[in-house]
């Protein structure tokens, strides 16, 4: 429905083997920073430096990468088998020593250790083609974290760097599929690494990454790959031509975190009441304009992680709106409807404030829908949207009633539940917690998590995961609303083989390491 239909008009000077990618945003100019350990690095550093394994956070699948695999002889030991035949882009051989060097680098420079792997690692040993990591405590899932988030850098270059914490690595040398091409402050290109260890899987010879990628740009300038939510995507993106398609799989669960230190939100009946009163479909529709599905109350992403789902939970965990049932729950908690208001014994109306961040507009729209629905059963709901920094602070300090937030989607089931439920994160209100902001604490659940942490047997893992889903379903530590999308926009004009609902082999994200999966899976359309 477009009165002025914008048409995609790709720049004819961009050849067929070159891909235009909206992956990196300058502010508004690019700073030439390819240090993979910095928060402000160029995104293409992810295409140049590779992890030991690539974890697809959509379906929690591990892909062996610089390591051909790892074994866990006991819950506190990991042995990585290092891939042979990999060379750095300057021709030097990649070895286990490089992996060891990288681990040591992060130990020596804690400020570079953004994922905090050294909070798990105790020591490590470098073998000829293995690296063995000893953890400080038994922790099976830590292997995945260490393996998937640590980008390996070449020792022969980084050993001479004076201060790696500020070094901008202007001429990056990595093992990845791409090397740096032309760099200008408003756009840079990366070129295919012809000596890449799986060079035959890489179809695109060049990637162009402009510094500004407004939605208008993306729609009109013939981008091949972008990661962005576009309103009315069919009208604005698909109809713009250029064989555009899109795939918006769930990348996490958007949920409302109740503050469990506050009455009456510490009453599970109140939470159940609030949860049952919601029409999640409408909330998701309002927030994501109908592109995302309502989320089940299990902390599992569907359909991608369907095989983890606890089959005993009814309806795949999806709660349908049921006002009568909600009122029953409220009655159990001592709340009754009076004159359209939900009041407790003393006649005070149930009132709460939902905190969300300014500028997170999909959340805001969702919250407004929640406000409407809860208002309809007589709850007085206020909405606050402070700046992101203040929102983060409120969340971490536990100074809120209900807060919007994202949960799950790390690609590691244990971590998804641990972050949400473990009492290890719990801090008193006023002190910053880094996870479990709702401050859920249950010794029984802690026990399940402890078992999970050391479980090596997949059967046992699955069983524990089922128990945890039941906990989330019954105790409502967070009220799941809808899935947060991964907004993949693709064009089939030059390259095909994009991830899709039919072939959900990877997340459509353009940043972090999953793009490696995509970049090694594409095929050129005109192979001449």
């Amino acid at each position, binding site marked *: 429905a477009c009165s002025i239909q914008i048409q995609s008009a790709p720049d004819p000077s961009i050849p067929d083997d070159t891909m235009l990618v909206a992956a990196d945003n300058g502010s508004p100019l690019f700073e030439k920073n390819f240090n993979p350990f910095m928060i*402000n690095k160029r995104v293409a550093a992810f295409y140049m430096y590779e992890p030991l394994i690539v974890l697809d956070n959509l379906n929690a699948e591990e892909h062996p990468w610089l390591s051909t695999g790892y074994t866990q002889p006991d819950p506190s030991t990991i042995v990585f088998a290092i891939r042979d035949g990999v060379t750095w882009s300057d021709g030097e051989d990649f070895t286990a020593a490089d992996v060891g060097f990288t681990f040591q680098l992060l130990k020596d420079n804690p400020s*570079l250790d953004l994922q*905090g792997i050294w*909070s798990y690692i105790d020591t490590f040993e470098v073998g000829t083609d293995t690296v063995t990591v000893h953890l400080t405590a038994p922790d099976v899932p830590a292997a995945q974290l260490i393996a998937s988030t640590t980008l390996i850098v070449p020792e022969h270059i980084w050993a001479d760097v004076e201060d790696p914490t500020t070094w901008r690595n202007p001429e990056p040398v990595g093992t990845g599929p791409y090397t740096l091409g032309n760099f200008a*402050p408003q756009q840079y290109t990366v070129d295919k690494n012809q000596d890449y260890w799986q060079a035959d899987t890489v179809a695109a010879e060049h990637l162009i990454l402009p510094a500004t990628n407004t939605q*208008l740009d993306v729609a009109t300038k013939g981008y091949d790959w972008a990661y962005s939510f576009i309103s009315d995507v069919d009208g604005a993106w698909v109809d713009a031509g250029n064989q555009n398609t899109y795939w918006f799989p769930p990348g996490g669960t958007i949920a409302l975190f109740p503050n469990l230190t506050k009455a009456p939100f510490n009453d599970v009946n109140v939470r159940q009441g609030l949860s049952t009163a919601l029409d999640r479909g409408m909330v998701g529709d309002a927030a994501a304009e109908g592109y995302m599905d309502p989320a089940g109350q299990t902390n599992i992403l569907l359909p991608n992680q369907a095989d983890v789902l606890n089959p005993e939970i009814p309806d795949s965990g999806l709660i349908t709106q049921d006002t009568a049932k909600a009122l029953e729950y409220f009655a159990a908690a001592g709340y009754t409807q009076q004159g359209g208001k939900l009041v407790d014994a003393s006649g005070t109306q149930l009132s709460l404030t939902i905190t969300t961040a300014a500028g997170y507009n999909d959340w805001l729209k969702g919250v407004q829908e929640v406000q409407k629905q809860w208002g309809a059963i007589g709850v007085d709901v206020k909405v606050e949207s402070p*700046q992101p920094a203040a929102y*983060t602070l409120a969340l971490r300090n536990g100074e809120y009633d209900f807060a919007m937030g*994202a949960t799950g989607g790390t690609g590691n089931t244990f971590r998804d539940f641990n972050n949400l439920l473990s009492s290890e994160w719990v801090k008193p209100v006023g002190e910053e917690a*880094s996870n479990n902001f709702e401050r859920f604490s249950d010794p029984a659940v802690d026990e399940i998590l402890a078992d999970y942490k050391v479980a090596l047997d997949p059967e046992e893992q699955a069983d524990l995961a089922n128990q945890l889903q039941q906990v989330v379903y019954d105790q409502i530590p967070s009220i799941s609303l809808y899935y947060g999308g991964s907004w993949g926009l693709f064009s089939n004009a030059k390259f095909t083989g994009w991830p899709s609902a039919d072939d959900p082999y990877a997340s459509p994200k353009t940043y972090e390491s999953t793009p490696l999966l995509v970049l090694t899976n594409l095929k050129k359309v005109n192979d001449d």
Partner: protein
Amino acid sequence: MGFVARKLGLFALTLWAAVTVNFLLPRLMPGTPADAALAKLAQNGPVTEATKAAIEAQLGVPTGNIVEQYFAYLHQVVTLDFGISYTFYPQSVGELVSAALPYTLVLVGLVTVVAFILGTLLGVLAAWKRGTWLDSVPTLVGSFMSAFPYFWTALLLLFFAGYVLRLFPTSGAYGPTAQPNLSFEFFGDALYHGVLPALTILITSLGGWILGMRNTMISTLGDDYVTFAEANGLKPRTIALRYAARNAILPNLTSFGLALGGVVGGSILVEQVFGYPGIGYLLFNAVTNQDYPLMQALFLMITVSVLIANFLVDILYGVLDPRTRR
């Protein structure tokens, strides 16, 4: 002499207070720079405690109590070394500012001057031809255009001239592959990219100058020296320009001074819409990311340039108005 000393004292006091306010403003905002960075990261997934610690270490988030920070800041002000930006870590504030400043100065500065000159001329014409279409058209169109919201004008221009008609580039200060240098080619490229933002500022600021000049000029037109000049049969052009306009422009210089001082602050909304790499864009990023070092430096720069611009206008006043010469 006592008068001058007092003025200078007041100037210094204002400067100090402004500098101090600039220090306090960012710190009055809730949350720290690390929280802002975390909030950004959290959009991509949960963030651990270790991450926060690493971020804080990376950014060098200020340590010490507020008094120590204040003195460290004063030291920075004096040495003009504002350290490393949080948002754009590891770039230094100096690096960032010196990269952004030229574009803002040229774009906003040039347009401000052009708008002032053009608006003033149109205002003179309107007042001189009072009651004719030369008066009513510029004043009505001017007051209408000056009521346009900046960003709205920017968006419309961007959409129609940029995307529909594809006449001008839609973002950036120069072509995507260009490397900034002093060549003729680059200059032309930069000029081409500046057209739309410049047009936006021109459209929305022109009206104010037209109206201001028209009103003061109508007042001076009634002054006795204008009547006397007419009685002496001077050429209408001479009367309009050298008598009426020449005197009418003086009061408008003060506004011009403030506007010029504001140039350094850039035009946040316009730069935002056009992704123009100027100070305004930097400022917006700094503020929304609680980038203390960058914010402090930018605020200081803006404050000082407003003070200096006012000072220069005072001097110009002295040159243009013999009455103030002492």
